[in-house]
């Protein structure tokens, strides 16, 4: 699937005229202002690059590093820091938009639109409790920690693949409509 270059997530780069616009920071120059977070990549994780970016935004939302209204790193800055394909960043931001977590503002960039931190908290305790129950059963069956992680990771992957990746994150995001231009 080709990601539409005209998509709003591309907006933060569209203002730049050909290379002459200059003032850029390619090749890992000084970091641009704007976003409270910076991405990193784990080459050994086996997780696709775009998904690593999505997960890092979600993680930052859960832990409160990112709040609604915050700007995500600009596409060209991510590309320059990590030396990754621009379409990969666009794909990640698109996924975050589909999940209702972020929105592109034409000419400005992509901004956080919802939070993940409060929503799940009451449910979280209950889920952790049932997970502990499952862990006890797994332990009793003779699985060690690595075995449990392997089983869980494999089940989680199957689950996501069956779900078809993006789409329906039931009740995961509480959308806060912002004054989008």
């Amino acid at each position, binding site marked *: 699937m080709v990601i539409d270059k005209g998509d709003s997530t591309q907006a933060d780069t569209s203002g730049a005229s050909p290379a002459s616009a200059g003032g850029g920071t390619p*090749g*890992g120059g000084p970091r641009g202002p704007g976003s409270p977070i910076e991405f990193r990549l784990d080459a050994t994780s086996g997780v696709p690059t775009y998904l690593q970016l999505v997960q890092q935004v979600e993680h930052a939302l859960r832990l409160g590093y990112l709040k609604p209204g915050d700007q995500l790193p600009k596409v060209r800055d991510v590309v320059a820091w990590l*030396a990754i394909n621009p379409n*990969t960043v666009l794909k990640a931001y698109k996924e975050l938009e589909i999940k209702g977590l972020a929105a592109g503002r034409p000419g400005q960039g992509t901004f956080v639109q919802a939070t993940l931190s409060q929503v799940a908290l009451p449910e979280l305790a209950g889920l952790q409790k049932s997970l502990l129950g499952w862990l006890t059963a797994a332990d009793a069956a003779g699985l060690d920690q690595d075995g449990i992680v392997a089983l869980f990771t494999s089940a989680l992957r199957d689950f996501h693949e069956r779900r078809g990746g993006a789409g329906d994150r039931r009740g995961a995001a509480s959308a806060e409509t912002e004054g989008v231009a």
Partner: protein
Amino acid sequence: MTMNVIEASGLGKRYGSARALRECTLAIPAGHVAALVGPNGAGKTTLLNLAVGLAEPTAGAVTVLGGLPAGSPAALDGIAFVAQDTPVYKNLSAADMLHLTANLNRRFDRRYAKERLGELGIPLNRKAGKLSGGQQAQLALTVALARLPRLLVLDEPMAMLDPLARHDFMATVLTAAADDGVSVVLSSHVLAELERVADYLILLSRGRVQVAGEVDGLLATHRMLTGPAAEADRYTERPVVHARRAEAQAHLLVRASADDPVPPGWEAHPVGLEELAMAYLREPGAAALPGPARGWALPPETGEPSEVTR
């Protein structure tokens, strides 16, 4: 419809009796960073040289940037090419290189070039031969990008660079793609480092295109099945690209999506770009090409033994 930055049909090149490239038909759409991958001697450099007009085909035709004949003035104007080993004039200073290139080209953005070299800390007055390998590569790349090309062609750009220089070099290339929408076609035989960079893959093997397509699409249509070796031969649901088997266990790289059923007792895993490319390179008879006419598993057209190519 997106334009194709390189389009070849029945393209072939002979050097004497050696066929460097044969019946090469492909279309690389604009807006991608396309990786041209294959073992040494697969025809990567030949294909790139034909596309940029440095060589004449002995069969078929190649056009660039939406139908311009390769090597025509209009084509040359829109393409920048950095050859293997990122050559620079060793006795010229960076400033001289910019001056020379500016005068040899219709379009040249001196300001961009000077700013880039400044950011990279490359002194303008130093002779290119005295720069480090990474700096020489960056100089060649900067000169190429300052021509404001629509297509940037790189032949084995990273072969001579250390890991940091590779990262910085690719960052420059990818930033140009992000900022100005430059399409990129680059050749490499180092698969691992392409995984983050390329979103389009062309696999060239023994002078032929074996696999071509968007990386996302290729990864979504291939799975690795792991299961009992005794049952490996009975798997016929989907085409098997490559099978590896031990006494008990077998791994089958199959052309199947996440929706395809997995036989009982088998496990399906997603594959990475490197794993996928390796499987095809080990099976020169297998192919994955776009278009209904050239679908799965082209039979080899010659009677050559399908030896493993690497």
